[in-house]
């Protein structure tokens, strides 16, 4: 089992050992003092950590989070990371995300389309980590378009949803094509399916290829 980042611990919360971070609760998760449980069934990054994938996270990083939704995962990220830029395109979940932002002074919400990085490149600085969880077709392309934000020694942590690419195709076929498309700009370090936490999802840890940027 690889080390958890600083600021993330396994703690007994509500009678069970769970991942937890320190911060204001966001989605009704159980808490223990200032610690709040990080539910891997609701968070793909949580599932990647729970499965022991080597995310390279150590805590305090600058993060670009694509597909922040209502803030379930990005709030945990902001609890242990440094400046965190949260990109979400849909207004309804953004309204909920704004509640999580209030008590997190280094979490920056951006109502922007992750497929159009030029619309937030005037705000987002170069980052150590990109976390990607966008349920749209063309997930590999989103990662490649946003590679411009990643420092040369940075990490891409992506959750790829097979059904977003093609509901009819066999997930393995989808994953294979996403993997090969990602390989153009990234060196893939670890790749794993996220069962039992998330069906038909792939967790990917990758770093930029030196030639790019």
């Amino acid at each position: 089992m690889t080390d958890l980042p600083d600021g993330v611990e396994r703690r007994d919360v509500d009678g069970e050992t769970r991942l937890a971070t320190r911060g204001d609760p966001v989605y009704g998760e159980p808490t223990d003092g200032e610690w709040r449980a990080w539910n891997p069934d609701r968070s793909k990054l949580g599932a990647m950590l729970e499965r022991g994938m080597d995310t390279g996270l150590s805590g305090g990083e600058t993060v670009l989070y694509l597909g922040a939704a209502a803030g379930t995962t990005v709030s945990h990220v902001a609890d242990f990371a440094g400046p965190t830029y949260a990109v979400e395109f849909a207004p309804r979940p953004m309204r909920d995300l704004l509640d999580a932002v209030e008590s997190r002074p280094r979490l920056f919400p951006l109502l922007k389309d992750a497929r159009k990085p030029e619309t937030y490149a005037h705000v987002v600085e170069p980052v150590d980590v990109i976390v990607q969880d966008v349920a749209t077709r063309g997930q590999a392309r989103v990662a490649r378009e946003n590679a411009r934000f990643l420092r040369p020694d940075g990490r891409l942590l992506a959750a790829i949803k097979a059904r977003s690419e093609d509901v009819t195709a066999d997930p393995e076929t989808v994953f294979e094509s996403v993997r090969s498309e990602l390989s153009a700009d990234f060196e893939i370090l670890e790749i794993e399916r996220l069962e039992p936490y998330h069906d038909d999802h792939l967790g990917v840890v990758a770093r930029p290829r030196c030639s790019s940027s």
Partner: protein
Amino acid sequence: MTEHDGWFADLDPDDATGAAAAIGDGGADAVREWPSLAVEAGYADDETAYYDRLHEATTTAAREAVRERERADDQQLIHAVRAMDDCRRTANELAERVAEWGGTLDDDAGAGVPYARDLAERDPDDALGARLVLLARRVAELDDEAERLRGFVEEQTPTVAPNLAALAGPVLAARLIALAGGLGDLARQPSGTLQVLGAEDALFAHLDGRAPSPKHGVIYTHEYVRGTRPDERGSAARALAGKLTIAARVDHYSGDRRPELDAELDERIERIRTRNAPEEGSPEGDDR
């Protein structure tokens, strides 16, 4: 003069409104070390102050953009048409309960919303009857509210989407906008998607190989689909979906009314209905 296009370029540090606008509307080609650039440029004294300002500006920009997008007329129309359907569905469901209960107390119990409306007019003779009558009044009120919401939808849709409302009828137009998530979303969809909006279960069953492809979703309620004989309904649905997609695009991108679309649709459906039309009175020509 600044030689970068960061969000804080040319911005007065005290100008919070300008900062939020710059976050929302700006853009850049190149990613740069904005925090240190901002300190260098004198926008913030140090990175802590920079991040504090960035937090305020991004939060304000996101909150305003959310408000603007959620208040848009098409989004309000979506809530109205969904509320109308909710009221109607709830009224029907509650009317069933009323009829069920009424059947035990009233020898002439009827069924559905009409019976509830009838009961609502009565004066109850005892406490038990009063419970039933009050419940029936609730059904009548919900049904009235559904009607009022329908009136609102019929009035609003033509201002939000004049061409779509004219071609589809205001209620169907509002349903299509609701199913797509907004007028812009509907305008960006191919007409094949519009054709099966509302038939998602059938569509996914088809994609899984368990069923034939659906010919129509909610556009089935349109006279041009429902009133066309079954063997040409698929063609009618395709033609209607094509014109409705064009109408949605005109409404979203230009907004002016184009009456020629109505004529084109009428003509197209007329051609579909008359081609290979069975002879009047021929034995295999019935609609079944």
